[in-house]
């Protein structure tokens, strides 16, 4: 759900008879749980879909640095400042290996960044919400990283080797981040009344957007079936969302915070929590660019990229000069 609504280029799932011999052979390898590696033959649609999915994920990591980076200068203790800096740095690292994983499929980082800046490729809707208080940093760790782990653990088993391997490392770091986020909230919830109110306010604002991270309901998820067949999506949006709610509600109770959903209730028959209707209109508006921070996030990324252009150009120019000098000396 760092990658939402990934376009597979197909509006319906093809019947087996419609597949070419190559496509059938490819599907047979997937069905046999053979990992696909960059040099292997693969259908063009699989390649294109993965490029979109992995780069959405990479962009989410990089754009996701901004809402949390917003509090590095204001972290309320030196320990928290160090932890937050290290966390945001980890996200840069995740972005880096995800860009590299996507590059193995025949695209380039520059092209992907260009796609992001031009609005041709999305990043997760969640990063278009603002971080207004310190409690938001704890809440992002707890809920957003929690939701990310929920989605990414199955991806460790996905069919594309480089992506699956990147996910293993990313998940290890994300679970560390989630614990740090929860620890921030524990401290706030056991602190002054003002701190506890800050934590509740953050949960009130982040709860519904965190549920939206898993993407639209399965019934409206037009591309999911193909992605599932290719094993680049292993569990459906609704399944993941339910697991997330089931896992998170007891954590909120432990913190003594109230989840802002009057319909939230344990359903003994289903063995799951029931929860209220998500405002999908808001989700689609945020994806369209109308969230509270869409404009700021992209403007900040574009400015950083443009401000850094002379640095990148100079580094390339210097490397060329050095290579020429070495050639001359040889």
């Amino acid at each position, binding site marked *: 759900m760092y990658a939402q609504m990934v376009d597979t280029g197909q509006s319906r799932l093809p019947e087996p008879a419609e597949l070419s011999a190559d496509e059938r052979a490819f599907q047979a390898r997937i069905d046999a749980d053979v990992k696909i590696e960059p040099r292997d033959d693969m259908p063009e649609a699989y390649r294109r879909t993965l490029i979109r999915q992995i780069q959405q994920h990479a962009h989410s990591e990089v754009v996701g*640095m901004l809402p949390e*980076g917003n509090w*590095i200068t204001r972290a309320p203790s030196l320990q928290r400042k*160090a932890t937050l800096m290290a966390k945001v740095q980890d996200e840069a690292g995740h972005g880096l290996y995800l860009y590299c994983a996507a590059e193995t499929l025949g695209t380039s980082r520059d092209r992907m960044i260009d796609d992001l800046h031009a609005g041709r490729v999305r990043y997760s809707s969640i990063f278009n919400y603002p971080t207004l208080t310190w409690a938001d940093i704890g809440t992002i760790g707890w809920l957003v990283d929690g939701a990310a782990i929920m989605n990414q653990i199955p991806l460790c088993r996905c069919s594309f080797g480089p992506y699956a391997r990147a996910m293993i490392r990313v998940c290890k770091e994300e679970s560390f981040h989630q614990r740090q986020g929860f620890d921030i909230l524990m*401290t706030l919830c056991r602190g002054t009344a003002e701190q506890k109110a800050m934590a509740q306010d953050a949960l009130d604002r982040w709860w519904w957007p965190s549920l939206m991270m898993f993407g639209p309901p399965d019934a409206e998820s037009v591309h999911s079936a193909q992605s599932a067949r290719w094993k680049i999506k292993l569990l459906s949006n609704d399944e993941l969302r339910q697991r997330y709610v089931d896992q998170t509600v007891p954590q909120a109770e432990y913190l003594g915070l109230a989840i802002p959903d009057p319909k939230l209730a344990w359903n003994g028959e289903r063995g799951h929590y029931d929860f209220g209707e998500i405002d999908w209109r808001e989700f689609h508006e945020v994806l369209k660019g109308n969230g509270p921070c869409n404009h700021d996030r992209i403007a*900040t990324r574009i400015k950083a990229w443009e401000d850094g252009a002379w640095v990148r150009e*100079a580094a390339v*120019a210097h490397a060329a000069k050095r290579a020429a000098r070495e050639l001359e000396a040889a």
Partner: protein
Amino acid sequence: MTGTGLPPASADALLFDYLLRLADSDIVLAQRLGEWVGKGPVLEEDIAQTNVGLDLLGQGRLWLAYAGEVEARYATRGRDENELAYFRDGSEYRNLLLVEQPNGSYADTLVRQFLYDAWHLRMLDALARSRDERIAAIAAKASKEVRYHVERSSGWVVRLGDGTDESHVRMQRALDALWMYTGELFAADASDDALVAAGIAADVTALREPWRQAVGDVLAEATLAMPSDGWMQGVHGRGGRQGVHSEHLGQLLAVMQSLPRAMPDARW
């Protein structure tokens, strides 16, 4: 603390102040580098520069922890790292003027870093020989990290100085603008002198020539001209190390300290 010829309480007060001088430059520069996170020119650099910031923050915390222990020896109680970082005003901060200068462009940030790193490494190597064992141990640990900082910032100064015409001009301008803050790196005051005499502090005046040599070598490779020494800021006993700062520090601290000061009873 012995060797200063001062009564123990005064000597500890002097040492406390000296430790703040070491801590605050690290903390303030780490805060500046924190402003860059997520906005670097390329992802690899974002990661590398954040590493430097994290190292400096860690070193600053070690100096602050020791400062608090020393303070407890002569005051009613010693403050912890967060009290010292978040509840001192600008005039109580003891950092160098160089590190509080704004980030500016990447050229300004890198030149500031390079000038500081080249000094910092020599400073730590000298402090690793301090008669104060705690100072010597912290300096020895920090020096290993700072050796990498020097390598990184020197590499970038060369790359950008000898890169494109534009990068060369930007780097030379940054160097010219920041040079007036380098005098303070080597300006000792009476309290430095007392601690140097006791074998505790580093003699910064002795670091000047080795620093000039090292900086000069990198600048030459970068095809940048070393500025001539004109009027220097913060010397003659009225600089950052004495608590007389530029306007920039107040803004930096206002941001950094806002939350703990708004809720002084809270723990974080």
